[in-house]
């Protein structure tokens, strides 16, 4: 029996420590991981908990991230609660197996610390890896600070393991900006956290040797489409469960999470759409811009997949101009968040909005209140003109001559 970890009502944790404690409290059966910066301390802390007797599960050392996710798939198919952590190149190496996990409907939880993808090599935070996993059939939750990283990791188990969902979940936090920034976190006590997460219920466990099952069957043109459609339906309908879990979490902790978060959007003419730690920077920028008389608000999808497109459009229905900020190299088109936002608005009959795209913070480049204020002012020009007078895609805090695309 695992020892109880003495926790104060308030702890000072960085995002990695917060995620590691959430994994510990969920009493994960198997963690298989190949540590990679900046998520290394998640598994490092977790294995320390295990060595110190605070965890009953197994920690599997493997030779690569591909093997890490493969071991996770094996352990989850065997019938255990499974988690891992990764970043960047490790995430990229896992991608093939991410699709296996979701297709086999294994509710693995992966705490991702977002980091840029090489080349050139970079260990700092951007959303390239999260965007890479976009179509892998996982639920992707986004945390903006250590408290959220802790909360959402606990929620991730509940969401993924719900029998209406049974899909793997990632919880994302920005590399270094969240993962290595110590802040006050109010954790649940071990027994309360475990009570919230609940006992793991295995479905079709391979360790039930009396009833052998085949995982990873081949389905060709006569089967594959039906299976993928079925899997997609589970993902599309998961927001209902996410909402339920968030509501229950609020009852327990008083901390409220929504499918789409917003700040001062109700009376806004101008809106920014962005995800991750920059959202908190943008809150400060919004307050400053409002002092200048610009009616601006913020919107953030709490989930990148499934994308809450109707809820997002609902939040944006009264604004005039929108800027979507993407923290990933767009490589040949507008940023993904721009595309999602534009699609969401069109689908809901709000095609008259003026919407522009900004690329920011690649490879951990600093994005300050002043930078976001500049975006707000530019977007306000669009709102005032009633048409787009700025370039379609701009770059924030990029050295050199102005770079933009139309």
């Amino acid at each position, binding site marked *: 029996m695992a020892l109880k970890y003495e926790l104060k009502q308030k702890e000072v944790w960085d995002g990695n420590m917060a995620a590691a404690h959430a994994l510990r409290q969920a009493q994960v059966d198997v963690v298989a991981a190949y540590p990679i910066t900046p998520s290394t301390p998640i598994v490092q802390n977790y294995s320390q908990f295990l060595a110190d007797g605070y965890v009953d599960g197994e920690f599997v050392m493997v030779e690569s991230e591909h093997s890490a996710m493969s071991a996770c798939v094996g352990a989850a198919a065997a019938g255990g609660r499974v988690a891992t952590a990764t970043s960047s190149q490790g995430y990229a190496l896992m991608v093939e197996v991410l699709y296996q996990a979701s*297709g*086999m*409907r*294994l509710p693995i939880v992966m705490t991702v610390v977002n980091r840029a993808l090489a080349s050139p090599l970079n260990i700092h935070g951007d959303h390239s890896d999260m965007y890479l996993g976009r179509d892998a059939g996982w639920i992707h939750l986004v945390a903006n600070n250590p408290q959220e990283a802790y909360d959402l990791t606990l929620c991730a188990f509940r969401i993924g393991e719900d029998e209406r969902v*049974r899909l793997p979940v990632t919880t994302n936090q920005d590399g270094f900006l969240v993962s290595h920034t110590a802040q006050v976190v109010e954790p649940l006590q071990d027994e309360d956290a475990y009570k919230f997460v609940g006992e793991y219920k295995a*479905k*079709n466990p391979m360790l039930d040797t*009396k*009833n*052998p*099952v*085949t*995982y*990873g*069957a081949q*389905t*060709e*043109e*006569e*089967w594959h*489409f*039906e*299976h993928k*459609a*079925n*899997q997609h*339906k589970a993902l599309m309908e998961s927001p209902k469960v996410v909402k339920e879990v968030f509501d229950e979490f609020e009852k327990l902790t008083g901390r409220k999470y929504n499918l789409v978060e917003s700040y001062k959007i109700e009376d806004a003419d101008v809106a920014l759409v962005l995800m991750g730690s920059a959202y908190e920077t943008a809150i400060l920028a919004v307050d400053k811009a409002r002092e200048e008389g610009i009616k601006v608000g913020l919107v953030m999808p709490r989930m990148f997949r499934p994308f809450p497109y109707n809820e997002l459009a609902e939040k944006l229905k009264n604004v005039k101009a929108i800027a979507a900020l993407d923290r990933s190299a767009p490589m040949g088109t507008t940023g993904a968040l721009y595309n999602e936002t534009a699609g969401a608005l069109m689908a809901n009959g709000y095609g008259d909005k003026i919407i522009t795209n900004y690329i920011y913070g690649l490879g951990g480049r600093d994005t300050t209140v002043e930078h976001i204020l500049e975006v707000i002012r530019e977007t306000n020009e669009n709102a005032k003109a009633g048409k787009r007078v700025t370039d379609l895609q701009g770059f924030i805090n990029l050295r050199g001559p102005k770079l933009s695309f139309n």
Partner: protein
Amino acid sequence: MATPKEMLTTWDEVQFGAVLPAFEDPEHKKRSKFHSYNYTVADWRVEKPVFNRELCIDCDFCWVSCPDSCFLVEEVLNKRGKKQAKIVGINYNLCKGCAVCVEVCPTPIKSLLMFPEYMDNEEALKQWPKKD
């Protein structure tokens, strides 16, 4: 394709996560429709193995090695009165033409060889290599 029509279900009824049970009733070992026994990959075959009874020494290597359980066997008593599996043929409804049986066959002139799918087995036996 190989899947029988009656097995094709709709998107709302497909097996969860494509996880296929071997048994409908594990207690009584009642095979489910998803049991590999009920599947056939014979339509993958472009060449077929032909079995030559004259040369076979009943080592059963092919029977053990066949990934699709194609080899038809009869239970016989050998010279010493012990039970033995005698290979009597190939179930072409199961064989995918992988040629593993040919590879493992140990007789000096192999008692299993691959021939074109369209050739009659009798014709194939006529073409069998002879001892020098």
